[in-house]
């Protein structure tokens, strides 16, 4: 009996050892920092990733590039911070997180690696977007912005509204019986910002002051309401996307990511400039997002030379051209537009034109909370039918509280 008990004890000791063994196995499995190896996190579609990989393999064949797709990229970065054993060396993401990561202190300025001269050939809008507190924290690669798209089968080229009132008239005429003249993600901050900018307003000032109860924002929301009434009571992507792709909606404001599926569905897609708000004479001005590469501090220090090579390669116009061809991204580098293939691409050109009027997303950390608060305000007004002024005042207060809570 005693022997058996001993035996049991041994089994238990073994059971306890299992986690330990696994632990050490985990340790040894870790790859040592290799100066010639650059890990890049991204959350892009396969087409973009493949094009990037191919270009980098061609431009810097000596560097081992590992492109890793990371679904919750920003959340993971907030955890791993600057830790060489867990964080990547570079990552590709839109510019709106610059403030957060720069304040965290995990980013290195890209000007350490790329010359002023190289950057001078980039579109001004993209450089503005990636500058935070006078420092450039991201090397732009391409940018995206919302476009006015229409289905030529239902909306003729000469019917495309030049002003918002024309759009409204068109919607009134063509909405009903399960069909929509125009749809958009009306209660989502990213989309509604276009209307707010069209009234000369904005969600937040450059110094981080929320502006939700400003005159402009309230007027924009009030005006926007009548459009919302003629749109479905859902604001999420898949509804809007499906309505347009199934030909149940004549026009929409959507991102370039809608284009491949629209073409696949056989839609004769037209892309037009944004309509002008009659009251203000300003065009609807959507947010633009600049996608580019960020450098983490630890890599900037330990792999200085390799990072320089990779960034230089990424600033090569051929990267922008390849991406534009692979998935219709609009290059940030003006040199790319000299390429005939790009010059002829209708969508890329339309995006470049819209970029002139588009507003780069704010990159200050305070913006992080504004997405949610503005979303709440929009759904309160558009979906729950609350009074614009009261809801705006309440949202403003909420935004102030949240921003105060960030400190």
């Amino acid at each position, binding site marked *: 009996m005693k022997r058996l008990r001993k035996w049991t004890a041994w089994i238990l000791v073994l059971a306890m050892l299992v986690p330990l063994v696994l632990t050490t196995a985990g340790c040894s499995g870790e790859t040592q920092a290799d100066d010639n190896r650059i890990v890049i996190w991204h959350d892009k579609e396969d087409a973009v990733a493949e094009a990037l990989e191919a270009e980098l393999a061609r431009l810097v064949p000596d560097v081992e590039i590992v492109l890793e797709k990371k679904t919750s990229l920003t959340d993971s970065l907030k955890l791993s911070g600057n830790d060489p054993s867990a964080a990547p060396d570079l990552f590709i993401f839109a510019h709106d997180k610059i403030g957060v990561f720069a304040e965290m202190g995990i980013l290195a300025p890209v000007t350490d690696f790329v010359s002023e001269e190289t950057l001078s050939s980039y579109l001004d809008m993209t450089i503005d977007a990636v500058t935070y507190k006078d420092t450039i924290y991201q090397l732009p690669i391409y940018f995206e912005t919302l476009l006015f798209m229409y289905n030529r089968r239902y909306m003729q080229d000469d019917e495309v509204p030049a002003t918002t009132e024309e759009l409204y008239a068109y919607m009134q005429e063509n909405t009903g019986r399960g069909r929509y003249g125009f749809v958009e993600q009306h209660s989502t901050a990213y989309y509604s910002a276009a209307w707010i900018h069209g009234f000369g307003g904005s969600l937040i000032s450059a110094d981080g002051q929320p502006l939700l109860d400003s005159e402009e924002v309230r007027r924009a929301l009030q005006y926007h309401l009548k459009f919302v009434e003629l749109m479905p009571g859902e604001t999420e992507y898949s509804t809007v996307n499906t309505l347009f792709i199934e030909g149940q909606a004549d026009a929409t404001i959507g991102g370039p990511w809608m284009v491949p599926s629209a073409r696949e569905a056989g839609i004769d897609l037209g892309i037009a400039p944004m309509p002008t708000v009659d009251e203000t004479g300003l065009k609807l001005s959507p947010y633009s997002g600049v996608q580019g590469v960020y450098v983490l501090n630890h890599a900037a220090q330990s792999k200085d030379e390799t990072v320089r090579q990779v960034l230089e390669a990424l600033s090569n116009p051929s990267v922008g051209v390849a991406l534009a061809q692979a998935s219709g991204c609009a290059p940030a580098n003006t040199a790319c537009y000299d390429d005939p293939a790009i010059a002829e691409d209708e969508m890329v050109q339309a995006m470049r034109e819209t970029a002139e009027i588009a507003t780069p997303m704010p990159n200050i950390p305070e913006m992080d909370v504004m997405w949610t608060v503005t979303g709440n305000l*929009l759904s309160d007004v558009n979906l729950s039918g609350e009074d614009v002024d009261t809801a705006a005042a309440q949202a403003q207060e909420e935004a102030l509280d949240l921003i105060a809570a960030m400190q």
Partner: protein
Amino acid sequence: MGLKRQKKWKQKKKGKGKTTFYAYLYSAPSLILIGLVVVFPILYTGYISLTNMNVYHWFDFEIIGLGNYERALLLVDSGFLSALLATILWTVVNMVIQLVVAFVLASLLNIQSLKLRKFYKTLLMFPWAMPGYVSILLWKTGMFNSQFGLLNQWMEKLGLQAVRWLSSDVSAFICCTVVNLWLALPFMIMIMDGALQSIDKSYYESAILDGAGWFKRTIYITLPTIRPIIAPAVIITVFTTFKQFDVVYLLTQQAGAKTGSHFHTLLTYAYENAFITNNYGYSSAISIIIFALLLLFSWKFRLKEEP
């Protein structure tokens, strides 16, 4: 006290010490794991809640005392309280329906002459086999979507008005409850089923001989017997329901897909009002407060469990 007796007493004590030692030795792996993955995070969150760790002090954070708690308590406003009430209501409604439905279904599944039992059981378990967020997404877009959802397609066929299921507070609450039940019932049915099968059939036989009807048998035999068996699962489900986040958030509050409903549970409320600030100190303080509330409730309702 005789020497002999004293010796015996000592021996006994030694034996007891040995039992304790072995009991802890055998439980050690489990307890160590729990310590690492369950207890340590709570302590660590407690520690962070005393610091000023946020975006602006990511690496150089320092202990600032109870400041975060002071601010967190300011969050305890009407919104927080209504979220708390909604959470309690949510937990009670969900648990009651779950227990009753699971018990009835498990009882029916245990009727001896039901030959297809296994088949039904497997089908009823299907919702459990799917990853939770996938199911929620299916419900959201497939069932509740006001444009394309199956529910509205049926409403249309019946000649009724399309309904925006998730947009008002009450109907959002009901929809969330339906989805939550759909997700949680398979597990509960399985637990109940297992418990019912463990009842010694001879109890019933003698009860039937005594002339006890189904109702009496349920009250006096079934329920008392299965109670201790299902207690752990039920209590754990109560907590899971209380801290439910995915169902409510993904159905109604997801960023970019809000539906206009104001139904919040404590966690979704805390998420929108604290966690998105990236202020870890402050969010941790809120987490600890929610945790304290949970402790308070469980203490209030005394989790009785047979020793």
